[in-house]
């Protein structure tokens, strides 16, 4: 495919301070391991999942073509024909899809010739309408096209069509309901995760009443809408395809937490915090964040957060009927109060950390508290990733769409 770029650069991508030579040899070894997992019968899907999660992900787009279908338990021996172009105009979402696809220029590699890009945009429209047409229970949302374009660019039209269909009936299913209620419900996991790790950031965001819409496009496009470097997008897709469908919301939380200083320094109001958070930095340390998201998933699995997430709905309504929230927050003078609290907490934390360092050799996954995950990450990506990968493998098997949601109407 045209994405030679993504392959090439994968090799030299900066990997969080790991020496280049070291990485080259590890990379070679990892390629070997992936090929091996693919070569056995039956294919070693658990190993492939670990590879997709661990450092560097699946490394090249050739590997992605081979491994992504396996991560979705798909057999790609007999691909259906190219989707027919004739269903297009009749579909109820045709105009919306067209409008969005036309405006998707930024998703294509910068140097791509126009006619090639236009051909791909046609294919993109075809795939989307094909999947929608075959699955009347699925509803198009703006942002779906950002996901599909990624699959198209990596896999080509035919393979992308079958994978996208599978993904749409699984990982993306909740986003494709007639309403976005389930999507909103998933967003409700964000604040409880943040609270577990950094209550101060959580309180600050609550105080600002920033809501969670800043993370909406992250969630429903798997970050495809907001990251401009395609290599980062596919790296994340490796991760998400290997994981529980709620992993993107853990990743969203990790991004917010990564920016805790900026958040706390921000003016404590909805506009400022929304603005800050919705501008995603393009130089995030992806490998570290991925490993951290994996850790968080292990420490605070969705089942543990489900109740709180469900309660957020009622809290939110309560908050919105609270008329003059700006008045309220002005009276409480959030900035200074929170800054003071933050300082106090930092002091106690420094003491706690000194103690914690002494015990750091023992990895305790048991009762997690604030700074533990950072310790995990420092201890070595592989250890943490091992744990995370195991957990996701297990839950991915158990996972059924909307399982969590059914209990909390």
């Amino acid at each position, binding site marked *: 495919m045209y994405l030679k770029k993504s392959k090439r650069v994968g090799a030299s991508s900066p990997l969080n301070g790991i020496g280049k030579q070291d990485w080259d040899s590890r990379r070679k070894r990892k390629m070997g391991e992936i090929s091996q997992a693919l070569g056995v019968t039956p294919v070693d899907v658990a190993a492939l999942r670990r590879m997709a999660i661990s450092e560097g992900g699946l490394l090249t787009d050739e590997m992605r073509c081979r491994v992504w279908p396996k991560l979705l338990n798909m057999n790609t021996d007999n691909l259906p024909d190219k989707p027919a172009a004739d269903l297009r105009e009749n579909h109820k979402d045709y105009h*919306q899809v067209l*409008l*969005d696809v036309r*405006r*998707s*220029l*930024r998703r294509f590699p910068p140097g791509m010739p126009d006619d090639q890009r236009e051909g791909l945009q046609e294919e993109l429209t075809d795939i989307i309408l094909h999947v929608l047409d075959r699955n009347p229970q699925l*509803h198009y*949302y*703006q*942002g779906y*096209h950002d996901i599909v374009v990624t699959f198209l660019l990596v896999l080509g039209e035919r393979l992308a069509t079958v994978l996208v269909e599978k993904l749409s009936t699984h990982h993306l299913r909740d986003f494709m309901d*007639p*309403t*976005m*209620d389930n*999507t*909103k419900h998933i967003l409700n996991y964000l604040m409880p995760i943040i609270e577990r790790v950094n209550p101060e950031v959580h309180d600050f965001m609550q105080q600002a009443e920033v*809501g969670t*819409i*800043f993370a*909406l*496009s992250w969630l*429903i*496009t798997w970050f495809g*809408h907001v990251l401009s470097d395609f290599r980062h997008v596919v790296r994340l897709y490796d991760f998400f395809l290997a994981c529980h469908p709620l992993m993107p919301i853990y990743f969203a939380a990790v991004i917010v937490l990564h920016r805790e200083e900026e958040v706390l320094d921000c003016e404590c109001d909805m*506009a400022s915090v*929304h*603005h800050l958070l*919705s501008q995603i930095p393009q130089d995030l340390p992806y490998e570290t964040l991925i490993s951290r998201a994996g850790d968080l998933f292990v420490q605070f699995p969705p089942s543990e957060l489900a109740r709180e997430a469900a309660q957020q709905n009622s809290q939110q309504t309560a908050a*919105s009927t609270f*008329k*003059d*929230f*700006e*008045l309220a927050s*002005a*009276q409480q*003078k959030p900035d200074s109060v929170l800054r003071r609290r933050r300082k106090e907490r930092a002091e106690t934390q420094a003491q706690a950390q000194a103690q914690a360092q002494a015990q750091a050799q023992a990895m305790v996954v048991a009762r997690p508290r604030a700074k533990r995950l950072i310790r995990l990450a420092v201890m070595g990506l592989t250890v943490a990733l091992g744990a995370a990968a195991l957990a996701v493998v297990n839950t991915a098997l158990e996972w059924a769409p909307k399982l969590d949601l059914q209990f909390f109407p």
Partner: protein
Amino acid sequence: MESSLELTTSLPGTYPPLLRSRIFKIIVIGDSGVGKTCLTYRFCAGKFPDKTEATIGVDFREKVIEINGEKIKVQLWDTAGQERFRKSMVQHYYRNVHAVVFVYDVTNAASFRSLPAWIEECRQHSLGQEVPRILVGNKCDLQHALQVGTELAQKFADSHSMPLFETSAKNPDDNDHVEAIFMTVAHKLKSQKPLMLSQPPGGGGAPPLGKSEEEEEGGWSCNC
């Protein structure tokens, strides 16, 4: 519901005054593709964006303007047009808005026919009558493709007591028109509420200075 304009400023007497400028919060709504993102971008960045993308959720843009020597922050909340986003998502952003900009596309009759639904949407979010609303017909540069005539649009605007502006986010010759539209809204907002920030520090209890330069209803309508 009371317009909460003054609440974005510091409250006199309670705390040392924040040296903050007033904030006008404006929400921009209308069907997908009518050009909400282009209009808000044009106002804030001064030019037509070369590539826009679908808006997912709500985007935020801001510009500091000056009216009669007062610096004012105009915050534009650019919302997603697709219907599914309105219901459960965008709600949050209707809170405490000071003005609403309805946008339709003059080359797309359907986007004009959706306006009653958008107005109803606003009503459901219990925006009071005193919250100024304006109607913007965008893409006037595409005269050959016109589907919604001025007369029809004006009638509609009149029946909802909104001023109508026909404009183009794209037209390079029409440099200041988009800006003028948002400035008109800002002027309206400024005149609606007395100046809170002219309060002396410590809130000496003096009532806000100067009767607002109250304009009559309808006195600020279209001059395009």
